[in-house]
């Protein structure tokens, strides 16, 4: 539980009047935040609220607009500070990617600073001793010689945090009594509920002796169990700075989500086609990766969103259905066909009438250095062969027709894909799959890195496709996208399907609230 002593200590650092513009967009607007000694300070906000930008300004990656101030121990410091200057002042960061090198050992990762800055010779024995003490102090039963990639994944955030603590202490070795700061950007995102407790204990134990911790998190359970105060960002502004103990869950959710959670306008429901029975799709007992249990039955012509926090398994649902990752159990029924998901492969999935629009367009979806036509033709080569030979003219004509139909511009199928804009690349990817008329189209973050105009076009393409009685599953954290696109939104918590929102409950705010807080039924149907 939060320590009482922390509140009496002065701030370790204060940021004042931090603004940042990217092009025309105001990412941060005069943000103030201070982290006191001995406290764990939560930083919350929806995606795109400016949390990461703030952390990146603090770490010196971005420069803030003029007028910004940084005070460390009450002393003004020039911004931006270099990372070495920060380190000397006792600041230590754990970024979202953790910054571990998976192929090296725990020892090499823990002592990476000492190793890279070593003079003539690396004193392995003393480094090993240091690493063992550090690991033992935080209750990590890990062999320093083990390779990071061999460890269970939930050990990694712990090791990254312990390393950051080591770095922070090393900086203050020559100035006893000084207090440092630990800045943690969603360290627990990939940890399950039963393992995150250990991390929170570690975080707490760092703050107690008087150091300050800034913790970025989406997880309200975590925020309530470990933080003393929270600052909530929305649209680049501070919308709330509160003491955690005096705040209720609902209050916090309202602050994050913003505005009221009134029902939105009723959506036009899915169109029931004559082929309703044939396209009937049901997922039962899906388990694998971060997913523990997911069952869902599609109504014909329905666009279903799946969302949740990072690590809740929402994005794994798509990958498991398509056989991109192997499921432990589960059955997918498409019409009369039963597909055991533990034996699913992408090849079978395509055969069963599925298609996948993966999250990373350029490394998973299409091949940037090939032409638009070649990308679209990828899954249909065999349908243009006569006597084993590809009929190029026919294929090119058909493929160009598809690109045209989806509004790919410029309308030249011989251009290399990389010369197109992100939105048009995404349309090519849709053309590649929609020509197969898949019964279940799985789209993971389908409008990531796509401009506003193309985004609207892609939405209408997908909706249009669904009205033909086809099912679309959209895994996304983009609440605006889900609200605009979906007929039903499945919200996942810790690998299980929580609420299913339908109809008037599908608004940005309600989706966001359901993601943050599983305990709020908020008029949703039981799954």
């Amino acid at each position, binding site marked *: 539980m939060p320590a009482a002593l922390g509140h009496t200590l002065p701030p370790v650092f204060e940021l004042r009047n931090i603004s940042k513009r990217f092009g025309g967009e105001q990412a941060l607007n005069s943000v103030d935040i201070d982290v006191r000694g001995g406290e764990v300070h939560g930083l919350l906000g929806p995606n795109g609220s400016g949390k990461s930008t703030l952390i990146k300004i603090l770490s010196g990656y971005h420069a803030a607009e003029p007028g910004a101030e940084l005070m460390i121990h009450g002393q003004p410091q020039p911004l931006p500070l270099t990372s070495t200057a920060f380190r000397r002042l006792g600041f230590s960061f754990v970024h979202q990617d953790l910054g571990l090198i998976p192929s090296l050992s725990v020892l090499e990762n823990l002592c990476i600073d000492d190793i890279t800055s070593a003079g003539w010779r690396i004193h392995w024995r003393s480094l090993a001793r240091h690493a063992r003490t550090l690991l033992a102090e935080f209750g990590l039963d890990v062999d320093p010689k083990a390779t990071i990639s061999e460890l269970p994944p939930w050990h990694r955030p712990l090791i990254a945090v312990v390393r950051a603590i080591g770095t922070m202490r090393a900086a203050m070795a020559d100035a006893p009594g000084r207090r440092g700061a630990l800045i943690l950007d969603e360290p627990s995102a990939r940890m399950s509920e039963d393992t995150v407790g250990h991390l929170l204990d570690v975080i707490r134990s760092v703050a107690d002796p008087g150091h300050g911790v800034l913790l970025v998190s989406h997880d309200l359970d975590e925020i309530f169990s470990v933080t003393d105060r929270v600052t909530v960002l929305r649209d680049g502004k501070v919308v709330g700075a509160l003491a955690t103990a005096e705040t209720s869950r609902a209050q916090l959710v309202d602050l994050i989500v913003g505005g009221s959670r009134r029902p939105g306008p009723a959506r036009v429901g899915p169109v029931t086609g004559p082929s309703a029975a044939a396209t009937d799709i049901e997922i039962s007992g899906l388990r694998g990766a971060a997913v523990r249990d997911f069952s869902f039955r599609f109504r014909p012509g329905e666009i279903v969103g799946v969302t949740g926090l990072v690590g809740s398994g929402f994005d794994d649902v798509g990958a498991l259905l*398509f056989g*991109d990752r192997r499921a432990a159990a589960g059955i997918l029924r498409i019409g009369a066909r039963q597909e055991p998901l533990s034996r699913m492969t*992408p*090849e079978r*999935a*395509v*055969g069963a009438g599925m298609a*996948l629009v*993966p999250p990373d367009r350029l*490394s*998973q*979806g*299409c*091949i940037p*250095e*090939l032409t638009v036509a*070649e990308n679209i*033709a*990828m*899954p249909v*080569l*065999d349908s243009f*062969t006569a006597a*084993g*030979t*590809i009929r*190029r003219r026919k294929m090119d004509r058909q493929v160009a027709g598809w690109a045209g139909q989806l509004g790919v511009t410029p309308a030249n199928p011989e251009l*290399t894909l*990389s*010369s197109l804009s992100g939105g048009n690349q995404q349309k090519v990817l849709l053309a*590649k799959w929609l020509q197969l008329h898949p019964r279940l189209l799985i789209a993971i973050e389908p409008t990531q890195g796509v401009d506003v105009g193309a985004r609207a076009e892609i939405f209408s393409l997908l909706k249009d496709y669904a009205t033909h009685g086809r099912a679309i599953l959209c895994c996304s954290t983009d609440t605006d996208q889900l609200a605009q696109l979906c007929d039903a939104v499945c919200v996942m918590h810790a690998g299980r399907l929580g609420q299913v929102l339908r109809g008037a409950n599908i608004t940005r705010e309600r989706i966001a609230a359901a993601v943050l807080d599983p305990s709020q039924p908020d008029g949703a149907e039981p799954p």
Partner: protein
Amino acid sequence: MTAPEQRIRSLIQKYGVFAAWAGTIVLFALVEPHTFLDRQNITSTLSSQAVLVLLTYSLVVTLTAGEYDVSAAAVLTLSSMVIAILNTEDHLNIALSVLVALAIGVLVGLVNGVIIVAIGVDSIIATLGMSSVISGLVLWISGGNTLSGISGSLVTLVVVPHIFGLSLSFVYVVAATLLLWYALSYLPVGRRLLYVGRSREVSRLTGLRVGRLRWGALVAGSFIAAVSGVLYAGTTGGADPTSGLALLLPAFAGAFLGATTIQPGRFNAWGSFAAVYFLVTGIDGLSLLGIQVFVQDLFYGAALIVAVSVSLLARRRARAS
């Protein structure tokens, strides 16, 4: 850049290597008109390089699928040595000897597939090891000796002049070029190899059988290398335990230089054809000028580096514009 300018640039890129080949011919024809334009010189240049062209095509297949098969030259040597031993020492029928050699080529490809696809070893490492293993085998079975006296019927089929003084081997080269061009452009499997070579991940998520395609490419590449070994045995009437290895770098140079032309950015049949003959013509001309043997190594090595650098720079510029 204006549209006509762009068209000219793409034409230059498309036919650059052919133009360079023509330029080399004109240059040496002017400098050394008697020896270089001698009919004997022309026909022997065109015919004698069939082995190198086939080996290059073997690499075109594996490179298209995204694999580096550096054991291809060793397969060539093994194939010719097997024919020589079976035919001259064991007195096996020449047709059967050739079949055995080709089967061994396929076998090597299968084993490479086990190591690269099933186990997951990086292809360049796996085939580097395989190359050494095969070279050792060749030295073992040949006792380190050069063999000669392979059946005349094979030699006749390969070297004896038939059409306009060109031997059949040049006809084989043209046929192989047509076949490879057709397979890579018009057969679904050729397209799939291209997809897999460019992105295994995208291919997998599109439902292609990535493992099988890579394996197939390795087997096909080894098979073509074994065919080039048959041509070697036919051309020389014997087999040499080491000479095949000297062809590896020229073949890579041909494949990469070929990938800058005809279909720039793709390993392709006609581009490789032009590239190999451009390189060979250059070396032929230089050696007629009396320049020493080292020029070969120099020329092939430089061509490989230049070809890969040029295509990288071209790609970077295409991305920037």
